[in-house]
Every structure is written in C-alpha cells, then in structure tokens.
C-alpha cells in the first residue's frame, strides 16, 4: 500500500515540477511549485520523517511561498505577458540538465554503495522528533547557532537592501 502511494506521489511530484517549469505565467508557476513542495512534504511523511514533512509545509508553504506570492503581487504590473518567451538559451539548459541527469543516474546505478544502500532500505523506520531534537541540541548545537546567526544576517541584509533606499522615479 505504502509503495503504491509513494509511486503515485513521486509521479505527481515530477508532473508538478515539469508544470512549474513550463507554465506560461509566473503565478501559475508559483502555484504548481507550491503543489510540488506539498507533495514532497507528503513523501517525507510517508517515509517516516514526520518532523521534516511538517517543517517543509510550515517553512515553504507558510513562509517561502508567501514571500513569492507577495513579490508577485508587488510587481504584478511588471510580469512578462508570456513566460514561454522568457527562455534564455533553452537548448544549452536542456543539454546541461540532461547531462546532469544521465551522469548522476549512471553513477548511482553503477555504484556499489548505492546497491548496498538499496539492500538496507527500510521504509518502516520512523525518525522520531525526540531523537532529532536531542541530536540537534547536543551534537549539532554549534551549527544550530551558526544558522541562527545566518538568519539574523539575512534580516539585516534584507533591511539594508530595501528599507534604506530611496525609490527612483
């Protein structure tokens, strides 16, 4: 049952990602991007990482996606009439992304490490929130503090970029 559900969600995630890429308007692109994020969050929950799934929904859908939407609303008049016209060297981009896909899949399919990982793959293993938080606040406390400083620097950076500049007419 879980395998079928995961397969469906994987196909949906790929479909939503492709639609995000090919949408003709930025608002549609953002909408399908949100759907992709939701589906990936559901995949996280299905494979047993409940905490990450919830954080993905809260942080992306509640935070990042709203930021995107506000940016679109604030610059609504400045949207291209058709995003299809905004492709910049699409053939090169297709070749590079295709090369990335082929190379990575080849390396993974030939790798002994990934064959070993596939044998040990266990969907029933659930990562508890307690274990993650224990690990976070004991073994990774230094990196946690660094990330909080990074967030603070981001706030200062955004304020410096936007708040203290005069609008040019």
């Amino acid at each position, binding site marked *: 049952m879980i395998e079928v559900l*995961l*397969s469906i969600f*994987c196909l949906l995630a*790929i479909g939503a*990602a492709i639609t*995000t*890429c090919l949408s003709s308007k*930025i608002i549609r*692109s953002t909408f399908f*991007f949100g759907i992709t*994020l939701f589906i*990936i969050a559901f*995949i*996280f929950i299905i*494979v047993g*990482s409940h*905490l*990450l799934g919830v954080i*993905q929904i809260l*942080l*992306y859908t509640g*935070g990042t996606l709203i*930021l*995107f939407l506000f*940016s*679109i609303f604030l610059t609504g008049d*400045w949207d291209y009439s058709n995003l299809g016209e905004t492709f910049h*060297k*699409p053939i090169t*981009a*297709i070749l*590079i992304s295709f090369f*990335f*896909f082929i190379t*990575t*899949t080849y390396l*993974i399919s030939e790798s002994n490490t*990934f064959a*070993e990982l596939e044998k*040990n*793959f266990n*969907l029933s*293993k659930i*990562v508890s929130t307690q*274990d*993650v938080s224990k*690990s*976070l606040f004991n073994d990774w406390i230094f*990196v946690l503090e660094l*990330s909080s400083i*990074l*967030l603070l*620097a*981001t706030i200062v*950076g955004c304020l410096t*970029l*936007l708040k203290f*500049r005069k*609008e*040019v007419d």
Partner: protein
Amino acid sequence: MFMLLVYTSILISSIGIFMLLSKKHILSILIGIELFLNGINLLFITICKSYSNDVANIFILFILVITACEVAIGLAIFLLNQRINRTIDINDLDKLRDN
C-alpha cells in the same frame, strides 16, 4: 522503491537546473534553485532510510534554513531591481551597481 525515490529526486533536481539556466525572470530562477534543493533533500531522506542514524534529517533542517535565507535575499534583490531599474529581467541586474 529506493531507486524510484532516488530517480525522482534526481529528475526534480534536473528540472530545477533547467529552470535555473533557461529562464530570464528572477522569480523563475529562484523557483529553479528551490526545486533543485528540494530534489537534493529528497535524495538525503531516501539515503537516510538505509542508515541507523538521523544525520540526514539534521542536514535537511539546515538546508531548509539556508534556502529560506537565500529566498529572502533573492526576493529583496528582485524587488530592488524592479524598484530602481523598472524591470524584472535578470540581464539588467548589473545596472544595480550604479545605484
């Protein structure tokens, strides 16, 4: 099932790379970066299922933090570019140097 998740994550990352390289709209480029990082997150969580420890979960949490910071700064630059240069084209970002 392991390989399905791995290939899904790589495909989503490839779509992200395509968006990152092919679009002129700054928001589309940011969405491309997000898609790429989400694919990597999915790969991390898939690999994590084969190990007994939870390091991948911690890594993903930090990737999410970095992604949120990157999006905030990226959108600030996008709004600044729109406010000063009156454009949303990535090719006009270099004009911000003059202001």
